């Protein structure tokens, strides 16, 4: 038993740190650290930089062009990049569809799509939820009807994050009516530029455009774009879900945000004293920090217990990870006091148009607080995670 990083791991951390310090564009880092809006281009630029270094896919197996990073290396990479203010990696290609293609994809899909993801050539999005099937994913109704060597896809997906930016979407579609609803579902890779696809923005309560409705009107998809066997999509989707949740723990980013809370506490004053010296505030920061230590240790335990993707215990990480993320923004609101109220959408643009309305660090806060309500809803709501844990781990 040993909690310390090995010499090799420390060296790896140092290499990542040095690289990030040199290569992460300052304007992007500034926007991340100040909680401003990131453009598509910000994400692409940073991911291109990593792709050139081979680090976009450092966690992939070597046979698919990855570097076989260990779980601890992945954790260190996440921590170092997050700390420096790198944008989070858009996970849909890298961490969601890629493992499915690796495990179940055809040789062509593997050589074509994985290579393009590795080079950061495609922006992927995820076509799972539908208006009638949110938590109850298996009730999905978007249909794919075989027509020669194509499927003709019709239906609607919703809550599709960044569909407005995407080149590709991976979709669960119904190719047959099974006896069980989980049967007859297939897993398709669809070009977002195909005729018949329409994207409609959904504006969230913070005024932002992150998610979309995606409409499919007789969209023709080559059969070779089906992953694995027809009708077995549910199996692949479950495989994928295990991967998605791991990332949601978000330890690296939360550590950065706790540091930012500490800075805010030094900067903001109450009765002339920095908030850091107000006991009730200092205690809450300390408690969040301690919760985050417990989460980080749990992530490391789960990661080092297995080389395979973590199972249902990933749900625990998602639960605690999102609770901590929400606690951080709530505390920031309480620290802001009256300045929790201004809602200045321009503040999201770099340059701080929030100026003149309280401390500029607080300008995007109300929107961020509202936005963070989503983390306990998406990727399987926290209630669904608890159902999974109760059934799978506790056998209830």
């Amino acid at each position: 038993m040993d909690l310390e990083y090995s010499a090799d791991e420390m060296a790896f951390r140092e290499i990542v740190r040095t690289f990030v310090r040199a290569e992460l564009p300052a304007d992007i880092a500034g926007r991340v650290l100040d909680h401003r809006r990131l453009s598509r281009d910000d994400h692409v630029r940073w991911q291109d930089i990593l792709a050139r270094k081979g680090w976009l896919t450092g966690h992939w197996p070597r046979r698919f062009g990855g570097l076989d990073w260990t779980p601890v290396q992945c954790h260190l990479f996440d921590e170092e990049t997050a700390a420096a203010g790198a944008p989070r990696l858009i996970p849909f290609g890298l961490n969601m569809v890629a493992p499915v293609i690796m495990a179940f994809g055809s040789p062509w899909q593997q050589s074509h799509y994985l290579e393009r993801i590795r080079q950061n050539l495609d922006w992927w999005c995820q076509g799972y939820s539908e208006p009638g099937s949110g938590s109850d994913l298996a009730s999905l109704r978007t249909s794919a009807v075989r027509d020669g060597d194509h499927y003709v896809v019709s239906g609607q997906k919703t809550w599709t994050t960044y569909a407005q930016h995407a080149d590709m979407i991976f979709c669960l579609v119904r190719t047959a009516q099974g006896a069980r609803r989980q049967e007859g579902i297939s897993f398709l890779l669809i070009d977002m530029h195909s005729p018949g696809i329409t994207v409609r923005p959904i504006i969230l309560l913070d005024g932002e455009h992150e998610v979309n409705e995606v409409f499919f009107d007789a969209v023709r998809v080559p059969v070779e774009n089906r992953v694995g066997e027809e009708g077995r999509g549910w199996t692949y989707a479950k495989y994928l879900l295990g991967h998605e949740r791991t990332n949601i723990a978000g330890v690296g980013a939360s550590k950065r945000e706790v540091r930012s809370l500490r800075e805010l506490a030094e900067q903001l004053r109450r009765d002339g004293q920095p908030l850091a010296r107000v006991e009730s505030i200092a205690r809450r920061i300390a408690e969040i920090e301690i919760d985050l230590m417990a989460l980080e240790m749990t992530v490391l335990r789960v990661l080092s217990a297995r080389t395979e993707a973590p199972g249902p215990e990933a749900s625990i990480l998602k639960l605690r990870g999102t609770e901590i993320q929400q606690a951080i923004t709530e505390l920031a609101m309480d620290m802001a006091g009256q300045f929790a109220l201004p809602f200045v959408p321009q503040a999201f643009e770099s340059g701080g148009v929030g100026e003149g309305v309280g401390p500029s660090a607080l300008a995007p806060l109300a929107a961020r607080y509202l936005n963070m309500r989503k983390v306990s809803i998406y990727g399987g709501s926290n209630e669904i995670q608890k159902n999974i844990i109760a059934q799978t781990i506790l056998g209830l």
Partner: protein
Amino acid sequence: MNFTLTEEQSLLGDAIDRFNADRSRRRGVDASEGRGRPEATGESMRALWAGLAELGLAGLLVPETYGGSQAGVGGSMADVMVMMQAAGRALMVEPLVATAVIGATLLEADTDLTRRAQYLDRLVGGDLLVALAHAEPDASASMFRVTTRAQAQGDVYVLDGRKSVVLDGGDADLLLVSARVSGSADEAHGVSLFVIDASAPGVVRRDYATLDGHRACELMLDAVRLPASAMLGAPGEARALIEHALDRGSAALCAEAVGVMETLLAHTTEYLRTRQQFGQVIGRFQVLQHKAVDLLVHLEQSRSMAYLACLRADAPDRDEAARAVSAARVSMARSARAFAQTAIQLHGGIGMTDELPASHHARRLSLIEFWLGTREQHLDRYMALAARDEATSSA
């Protein structure tokens, strides 16, 4: 002890509900959908306010002598409670708290009787929007730190300073500004209240939206020169008046929160009764049922505390009034936050959208939670008052 509305009060609540329903119908949206924001409909705030004034809302607290509180209703915080609950139900954005509650309270205390009659007459008629500018950028635990300076120079005062998050301040005709004529930042004495025309030279307002669709402003006072008569009340002794006005405002917000929760709970249970997942309505899931129960419990507690705050805000014993109001604010603040978060969570993704009313109600609850003092500020105030009370009773 009696919690029953008078018939007039019931009628007042109904009238406001009807007014809002009519207005929504004209706009083609549901009354409870929180689509009341003028900028969303192109209507002018002035016109809307005039309509409300006709209903008697602008002058609800104003004594009959000045044209307010007619037809057996008005003049008391119990009436304000009825009004604000109705306002909360329809997510009204008009400056009821700023003008009809806080503004009216302050103007009624004006010792310049001519001006008092003049302003109150305009206020009752819907022709005068008022905002109190009191809080400053450097937050204070006490809510009564004032560093804005009013320097006497001959027979004028020169005001310098800054006021923050003045709700409904951007639209106001009249700004009531607290400024220090003597003493240090935290001293109870030495604060005066000035009546300033919003268009006075040296007054700069930076207007912005708040997270719920209200408007607020930052107010910069740069060598604003005022005649001595601009002072409302005795020099340096405005704190008690401001505190009373803010307590009435806080009590009104407690009542507004109840209205918002009522509608949001109705929306949420309706959603739970209709949304299907896993082959049944999601309201059959026990975990969601219990979370909905938590909402109801928050609502009922908040309702109780709104009574307490509104019916005690005018108590002759100022400490008792303050203690009741701050207790209500502490309770309401926690409930408002938990309520907003839980209601969104129960709606799932759709609760995150701007499209659905739920998110509008949740945002209003956040505004109410933070305006006129945070939970921690009110808790500290409650504790200080409780300690003072004990010291007195044991003395």
